[in-house]
């Protein structure tokens, strides 16, 4: 009874196990299925059970192989072969499996039972197998083993960096060979190491997608940046394996995520990712981590993201030179678009940090503090200049004064801490020059020369400064030092010449005629080409008159007259020099009379050009000679008479330069238009036209036209080789920024009025649109729009209209 029960229970058990094995087979749990079906087959070796057993064997062997457990897989395959294969489906999968575990030679019927197609496919697989795992190459395929060995040798040569040897091994592999794929792979690999993307693509694009070489090339392509890291776990892990060759772990994926957040400007996500990943990133590769922190910090700082920087500073460690992040925050504030972000506070805090910062030596600390003060000074200067150029109409004088006071203080601190730092003096001098304080600029340059005696720019500045103040002897010292530093420099030579000429005048006024003559002779030696110029000869004549040598003076005057077609310009220069050389009043009157008489002649381009050029040079000096105003008035009348003159471009330019500071806008515009018509390639005339437009004011200027003129001026002047065109570029750029300012003010006004909700109905209209509206309305009413605009700008509307 007991044995009967036992038998029944055994049978029930077998039924239960076989069902479970079937379920496990379907589920892919081959390990449990094999265990169960083995027991069942031992108990009841039915055909069904055998079928399941064969499937379980092959399934488990394939699974082990996939998990890289080749030896275990091989053991299972051996058991399967011992059992014998009867199931057609199992039989079909067996050759691949046998090949993979290196037991292809054990194929029960040999490869004769295979179709040609299947045999070819297996040979391809065997070829890949022979390269990847040569141990598993079937003995029945000796030729495959040999060729595969050649590929491996080539790969080893590439590993050693011996590319030519590697290519030598590949040379004999024909295109139809099973190993042609590997040949392309090795070539592509050589290109990969050589960072040759084209070579890589040319070879790896020919790889068969189903073969092993393609699978190897895939992660290499990701590393080379020619393929992206898709959501493919297998590929990701292969790339990580490559990364592990140089770092302690995989970081490329994490960096890619951070890059994406940066590109999307998704700062919360970026900071969250960084908070999570920073420790492991740091452990993986300290160098990469530091660079990453540094460049992310750069993003926050350079984009002025002060709040994000604050958050960032809580996640990562500060740099040794900025232990409290004050430096970074100060720079971020400088770049911020918000006015309430003030860098000053952070710079002051950083100055305190610098007092005992261990990364710097005491001398470096002083220099660093000096540089920070200079940075602050430049910030204040920018502030002051911005306020000075502001055209909003508000009175900024108090703020300008305050900003300038702070700038001066900051410059002083800088001079104290870094006395030999020349750029600080240059910045301070520029600050004074912009604010029209040449005396202070000269003092700063003088101070710079105490610390840096061979500072060419300072020497040139001081030489020019003293020449322009009629102090030739003082200027001479600086010009001479500059000339010694740069003897072939055109500017230094020109300046030295000017100081000789000016010194001659100064000496002549104090009756030191011989010294004055030797200065003139020195000037002639320096620039022999100029010694016979009419204006130089005029100066010599003035000197000789002063020295009581009228004969010599007459000869100089006659010589000068020979240089000119008509004498008008000479009489003007003689008048000016007579005044400057302090000649007797009768002499001055004599030349002035001659000049006025000569002016009555027919107008001529050359004469106008020469006179404007010479008078303009004097007008640009801080202290022009007495009577210059009267001479300017007379010359202006002459220029007005020149309406039918056949202008030469050079003369037109001189005349325009003379008119620039005189506020003769209509005449200037007329002549500049002529200049553009005659010589459209001269940027100067375009700039003049642009500036004339701007001078009309925000309601009357034509924005598009002005922009066009200024842009054209920049383009033409930048290409020009004429040194006079250099300032044209700068001036035109300033003009463009002025237009921007006008537009911004208009936008700001618009914002304010819309915020307050109390805006004037005309507040939303741009100045140029307003002008158009006024012109249209005036056109309808028969009024002159210019008059209406004059009244609007002047702020005195005529009620009768």
């Amino acid at each position, binding site marked *: 009874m007991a044995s009967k029960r036992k038998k029944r229970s055994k049978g029930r058990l077998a039924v239960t196990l076989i069902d479970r094995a079937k379920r496990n087979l379907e589920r892919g749990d081959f390990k449990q299925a094999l265990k169960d079906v083995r027991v069942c087959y031992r108990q009841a070796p039915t055909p069904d059970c055998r079928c399941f057993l064969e499937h379980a064997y092959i399934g488990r062997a394939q699974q082990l192989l*996939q998990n*890289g457990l080749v030896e275990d897989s091989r053991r299972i395959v051996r058991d399967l072969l011992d059992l014998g294969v009867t199931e057609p489906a199992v039989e079909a999968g067996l050759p691949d499996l046998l090949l993979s575990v290196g037991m292809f030679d054990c194929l029960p019927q040999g490869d004769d039972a295979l179709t040609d197609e299947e045999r070819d496919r297996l040979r391809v697989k065997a070829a*890949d197998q022979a390269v*990847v*795992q040569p141990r598993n190459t079937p003995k029945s395929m000796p030729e495959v083993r040999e060729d595969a060995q050649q590929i*491996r040798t080539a*790969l080893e040569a*590439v*590993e*050693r*960096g011996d590319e030519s040897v590697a290519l030598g091994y590949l040379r004999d592999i024909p295109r139809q060979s099973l190993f042609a794929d590997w040949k392309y792979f090795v070539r592509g*690999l050589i290109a*990969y*190491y050589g*960072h040759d993307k084209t070579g890589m693509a040319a070879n790896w694009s020919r790889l068969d997608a189903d073969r092993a*070489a393609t*699978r*190897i090339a*895939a*992660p*290499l392509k990701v*590393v*080379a*940046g020619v393929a992206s890291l898709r959501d493919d776990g*297998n590929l990701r892990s*292969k790339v990580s*394996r*490559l*990364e592990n*060759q*140089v*770092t302690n772990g995989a*970081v*490329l994926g994490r*960096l*890619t995520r951070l*890059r994406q957040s*940066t590109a999307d400007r998704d700062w919360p996500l970026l900071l969250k990712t960084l908070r999570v990943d920073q420790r492991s990133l740091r452990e993986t*590769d300290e160098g*990469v981590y530091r*660079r*990453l922190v*540094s*460049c992310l*910090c*750069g*993003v926050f*700082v*350079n984009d002025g993201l002060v709040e994000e920087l604050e958050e960032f500073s809580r996640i990562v460690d500060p740099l*040794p*030179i900025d232990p409290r992040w004050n430096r*970074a925050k100060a*720079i971020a504030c400088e770049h911020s678009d918000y006015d309430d972000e003030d860098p000053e506070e952070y710079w002051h805090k950083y100055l305190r940090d610098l007092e005992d910062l261990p990364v710097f030596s005491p001398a*470096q600390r002083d*220099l*660093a503090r000096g*540089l*920070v003060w200079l*940075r602050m000074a430049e910030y204040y200067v920018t502030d002051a200049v911005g306020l000075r150029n502001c055209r909003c109409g508000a009175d900024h004088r108090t703020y300008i004064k305050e900003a300038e006071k702070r700038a001066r203080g900051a410059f002083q601190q800088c001079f104290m801490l870094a006395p030999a*730092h020349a750029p600080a003096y240059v910045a301070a001098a520029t600050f004074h020059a912009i604010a029209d304080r040449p005396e202070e600029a000269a003092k700063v340059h003088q101070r710079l020369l105490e610390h840096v005696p061979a500072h060419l720019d300072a020497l040139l500045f001081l030489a020019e400064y003293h020449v322009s103040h009629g102090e030739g002897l003082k200027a001479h010292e600086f010009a001479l030092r500059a000339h010694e530093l740069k003897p072939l420099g055109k500017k230094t030579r020109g300046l030295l010449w000017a100081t000789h000429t000016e010194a001659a005048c100064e000496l002549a006024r104090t009756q030191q005629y011989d010294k004055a003559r030797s200065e003139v002779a020195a000037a002639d030696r320096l620039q022999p080409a100029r010694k016979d110029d009419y204006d130089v000869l005029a100066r010599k004549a003035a000197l000789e008159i002063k020295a009581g040598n009228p004969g010599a003076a007459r000869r100089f005057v006659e010589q000068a007259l020979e240089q000119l077609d008509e004498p008008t310009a000479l009489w003007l220069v003689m008048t000016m020099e007579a005044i400057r050389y302090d000649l007797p009043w009768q002499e001055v009157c004599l030349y002035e009379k001659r000049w006025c008489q000569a002016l009555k002649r027919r107008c001529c381009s050359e004469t106008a050009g020469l006179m404007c050029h010479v008078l303009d040079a004097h007008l640009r000096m801080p202290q022009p000679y007495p009577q210059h105003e009267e001479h300017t008035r007379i010359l202006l009348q002459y220029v007005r008479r020149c309406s039918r003159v056949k202008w030469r471009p050079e003369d037109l330019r001189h005349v325009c330069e003379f008119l620039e500071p005189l506020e003769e806008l209509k005449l200037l515009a007329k002549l500049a238009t002529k200049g553009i018509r005659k010589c459209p390639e001269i940027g100067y005339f375009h700039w003049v036209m642009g500036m004339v437009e701007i001078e009309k004011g925000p309601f009357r200027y034509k924005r598009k036209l002005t922009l066009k003129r200024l842009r054209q001026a920049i383009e033409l002047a930048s290409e020009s080789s004429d040194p006079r065109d250099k300032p044209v570029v700068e001036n035109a750029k300033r003009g463009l920024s002025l237009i921007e300012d006008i537009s911004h003010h208009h936008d700001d006004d618009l914002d304010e009025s819309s915020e307050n909700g109390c805006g004037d109905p005309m507040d939303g209209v741009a100045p140029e649109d307003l002008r158009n509206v006024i012109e249209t309305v005036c056109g309808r009413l028969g009024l002159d729009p210019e008059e209406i605009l004059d009244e609007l700008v002047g702020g005195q509307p005529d009620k009768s209209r």
Partner: protein
Amino acid sequence: MADPYSILDVSPDVDEATLRRRYLELVRRNPPEKCPRQFAEIREAYEQLRDPVRRLERQLFQVRGGESVDDVIADLRSRVQATRIPTEILLSLAER
């Protein structure tokens, strides 16, 4: 211009002698007649760092403006790419 420290592969606190040694080493490796572009880059980077005042200014006021996350990735990629992969590891990438 890219970060001069990265070009010369030196840390920001590098001393003058090490900087010069590194510069000469790179110049020897990238002579102007063979690698003019690299040579110019190295030279410019050295010029930026050799003047202590310019270097200090750079340290104080330039917050790695020239480098982006892309550069870090590209550099890492380049380092991985430049490392010769042992043949066995390379072939192990063939597994599915």
